[in-house]
């Protein structure tokens, strides 16, 4: 008689798998009852065997179909077809009561409106559950069977060659060697807190899997693996692949699963002579978990409005075992639902640190500016605007965010933050989401993100925290959106450990030749260059762009196969913040070396805008400008040819470049030709006619009397050059050149003579170095040039 009284006995579910292997020793050994509630196939087995015990079947079927039993329905319907033949042949053998009962059962049992596979009597002999074809259960069943045979094969193999096992295959990649620190038991599994031990000579392969900071792991062993291995503190165990590593959010250790292929290498304690599995019981058993601790997901059916409230409630419940620590920016942010404070701490790598100018929009400052203009025409200080610290961060999943932090009190602090933060892993705390930006609207920012893609190491996968060993996943396309976050000074905290994160992509310096000749016409580039010439706006620096002409040794050396112009112009736009050391270097006439990080190359033009960082490296000796120490900075200024090689002026010359020019004077701009006295001692132009002696001058700046002041001359001439025909070249000459044209070493008489234009016409000028100020091509080619002194 089938003892399947569901109401009275404690019926325990068994695995419906055909082969009861070691893995299913999870089930208590006390049970040998198969739960008929779980498996109608089993019921079929028990209830309608292809035997002739129809009488029993009838009774059973009647019994079973008291409940709502599909199997019973099927069974009874099948039995019905068998009943009637019975009746005809042995009608008297069966009581009317039985027949009535089965008929009643058929009528009573409700039909379920879903279709389930009908169990034919033939299936019952296989005692195997037929899963839905193509479904998850069928797939797992297949995987499981494969795994079971692999496990038994491995066990058998490891038992056979135990002597060789200690030294064999340690250097095979993927073997985890762990030292057990502590073991406890939870729900029939043993959890071992372990320390990862690098196998000798294998450090390089484990670099990705285990970094220096996380050598701790939590290994899970199921009952039968643990019973066989008996892990205890200070044991060393080896886990052979395939094992799985699960990284749980909020938990710093990875969790090792699928540890079927494990072996104890050395044991801390001496093995018992009896070798009874007593130690199973010695593992501390954790109490059952709190049942109200749900595993997320269950409240997802609610409407959106309610779900946020539920989320808060759920967080309270779950805060017991989940520290609010997150590895994914996306998760932390999108869990908000709206712009607001992110309450989770997120681990990120700081890829870049830079500063942005803060707009002066407050009414107070505007009034102050007006007042200062009225009072004195003193030039405003160089750094009028305040700057704000920013950082571009990336999380372990590859997602980027721009973090806007506090205003900097001095722009030099930027370099300190850069040094401390760039490349390190940090924890973001108390940040607020401002905006979600997309590629279309912020092409320069995404140009920077593109330059950091693909990432330096493999990224984590959102859908798959499990990583099988040696799995290399292609990084995919660069992200098309990014978040703008804001925070305060305390929002970024360096994580422990001084090492640079493997995700960090250092801005690699290229030579200018590589930059100019590279295949990609637009993008970000970093380089070190010598600034030959600076063109500063006469008014406030912060409001207008600065043009620089750069060169480096790669451009200066001649390569006939791939000719390249020897200098290149770079525009520093107003959105690029210049620190005081950079401004000082730019204001001094000496040439200097500077490093440009993440400069933009757009349509073949170099420029520094937002996210670009400029640093002074070294200047010519004798200057008072500070230098930023860099281990690889050799002063290029000394190594460049003096004077630097320049292109000759040609039809293709673009504005803001340096060229050499040789030509003949064909005209003079008489309107702009004049001379004026200047002080011999300080060079100032601010002279006054002395009150006492009208013949002499008095310098206001250095407060001295001058007998014979210097005379400065300005002259602009038109040149004609043999290399350029049909082109008007107007050159503003320098003092020395002018003197040589006028054929007077100095102008001696205090009263200035007039000069005849004819006296200078036809004179040869050059080769001189000129800065191309402006080029117009219509109606004819016209260039405005300025002679410079390099």
């Amino acid at each position, binding site marked *: 008689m089938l003892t399947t009284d569901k109401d009275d006995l404690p019926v325990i579910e068994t695995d419906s798998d055909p082969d009861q292997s070691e893995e299913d020793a999870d089930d208590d050994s006390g049970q040998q009852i198969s739960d008929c509630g779980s498996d109608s196939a089993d019921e079929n087995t028990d209830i309608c065997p292809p035997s002739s015990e129809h009488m029993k079947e009838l009774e059973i079927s009647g019994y079973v179909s008291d409940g709502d039993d599909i199997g019973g329905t099927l069974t009874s319907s099948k039995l019905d077809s068998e009943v009637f033949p019975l009746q005809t042949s042995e009608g008297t053998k069966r009581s009317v009561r039985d027949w009535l009962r089965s008929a009643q059962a058929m009528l009573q049992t409700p039909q379920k409106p879903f279709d389930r596979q009908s169990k034919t009597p033939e299936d019952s002999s296989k005692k195997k559950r037929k899963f*839905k074809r193509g479904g998850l259960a069928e797939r797992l069943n297949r995987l499981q069977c494969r795994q079971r045979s692999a496990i038994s094969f491995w066990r058998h193999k490891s038992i056979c060659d135990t002597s060789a096992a200690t030294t064999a295959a340690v250097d095979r990649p993927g073997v985890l060697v762990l030292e057990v620190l502590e073991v406890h038991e939870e729900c029939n599994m043993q959890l071992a807190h372990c320390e990862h031990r690098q196998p000798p000579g294998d450090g390089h392969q484990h670099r990705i899997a285990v970094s220096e900071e996380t050598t701790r792991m939590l290994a899970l062993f199921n009952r039968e693996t643990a019973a066989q291995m008996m892990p205890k503190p200070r044991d060393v165990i080896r886990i052979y692949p395939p094992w799985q590593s699960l990284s749980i959010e909020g938990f710093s250790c990875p969790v090792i699963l699928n540890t079927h292929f494990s072996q104890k290498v050395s044991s801390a304690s001496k093995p018992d002579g009896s070798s009874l599995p007593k130690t199973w019981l010695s593992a501390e058993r*954790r109490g059952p978990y709190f049942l109200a601790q749900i595993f997320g997901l269950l409240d997802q059916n609610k409407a959106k409005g309610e779900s946020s409230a539920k989320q808060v409630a759920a967080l309270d419940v779950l805060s017991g075992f989940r520290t609010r620590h997150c590895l994914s920016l996306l998760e932390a942010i999108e869990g908000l639902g709206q712009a607001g404070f992110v309450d989770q701490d997120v681990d990120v790598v700081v890829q870049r640190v830079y500063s942005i100018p803060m707009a002066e929009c407050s009414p107070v400052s505007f009034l102050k500016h007006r007042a200062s203009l009225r009072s004195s025409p003193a030039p405003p200080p160089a750094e009028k605007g305040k700057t704000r610290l920013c950082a571009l961060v990336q999380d372990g999943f590859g997602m980027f965010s721009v973090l806007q932090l506090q205003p900097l009190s001095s722009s030099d602090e930027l370099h300190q933050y850069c040094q401390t933060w760039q490349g390190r892993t940090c924890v973001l705390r108390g940040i607020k989401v401002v905006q979600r930006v997309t590629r279309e609207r912020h092409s320069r920012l995404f140009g920077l993100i593109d330059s950091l893609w693909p990432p330096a190491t493999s990224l984590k996968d959102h859908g798959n925290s499990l990583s099988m060993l040696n799995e290399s996943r292609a990084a995919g396309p660069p992200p098309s959106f990014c978040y703008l976050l804001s925070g305060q000074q305390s929002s970024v905290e360096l994580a422990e450990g001084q090492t640079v994160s493997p995700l960090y992509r250092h801005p690699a310096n290229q030579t200018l030749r590589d930059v100019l000749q590279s295949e990609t016409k637009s993008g970000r580039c970093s380089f070190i260059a010598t600034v030959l010439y600076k063109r500063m706006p006469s008014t406030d620096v912060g409001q207008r762009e600065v043009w620089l002409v750069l060169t480096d040794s790669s451009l200066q050396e001649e390569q006939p196969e791939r000719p390249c112009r020897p200098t290149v112009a770079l525009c520093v736009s107003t959105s690029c913040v210049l620190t005081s050391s950079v401004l000082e270097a730019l204001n001094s006439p000496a040439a200097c070396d500077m490093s440009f990080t993440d400069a933009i190359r757009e349509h073949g033009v170099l420029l520094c805008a937002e996210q670009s960082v400029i640093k002074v490296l070294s200047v010519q000796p004798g200057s008072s400008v500070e230098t930023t120490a860099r281990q690889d900075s050799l002063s290029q200024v000394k190594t460049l040819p003096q004077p630097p090689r320049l292109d000759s002026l040609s039809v293709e010359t673009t504005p803001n470049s340096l060229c050499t020019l040789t030509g003949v004077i064909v005209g003079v701009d008489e309107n702009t030709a004049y001379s004026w006295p200047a002080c011999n001692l300080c060079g100032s132009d601010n002279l006054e006619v002395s009150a006492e002696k009208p013949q002499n001058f008095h310098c206001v700046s250095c407060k001295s009397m001058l007998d014979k002041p210097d005379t400065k001359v300005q002259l602009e001439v038109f040149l004609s050059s043999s290399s350029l025909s049909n082109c008007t070249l107007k050159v503003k000459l320098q003092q020395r050149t002018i003197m040589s044209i006028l054929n007077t070493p100095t102008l001696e008489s205090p009263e200035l003579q007039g000069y005849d234009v004819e006296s200078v016409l036809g004179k040869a000028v050059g080769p001189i170095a000129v800065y191309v100020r402006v080029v117009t091509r219509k109606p004819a080619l016209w260039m405005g040039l300025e002679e410079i002194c390099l």
Partner: protein
Amino acid sequence: MRSFLPAVAEQLFRDIQRAYQESTQIPDDLLIALKFVFGSCALQALDLVDQRSVTCLSSPSGRQAFQVIGGSGRLYTCFLSCHYCPCPAFAYTVLRRNQGLLCKHILAVYLCQAMAVTQQESIPDQQMSAVLSGTGAP
């Protein structure tokens, strides 16, 4: 005295949800991990999921409950706010012996939620009270 298995389970469900959202597929290694962590009820729960046996009942008063059609066709009512299932396996394996985290019905609920294949049904309040109190006809 911290327990870690719940966090492992939760992470697995999160991963399944993401994987399913991205590719309407659950990769093999997640299935293996499910089997490893949950043991024998994993396979049966997946079968229940294949059969789409989980329904979320909701009533106008705002109450919700899950109903799972077990292998025998019997209905089990499970709750949203805590882990409970009236099946004998839960009573024995989870409550009495503390040898399992969940029974296959609750695991099927989680998996259906993760894959968003829970059937939805709304029932009148009276029926909901009957279901929740355990006296209702399933």
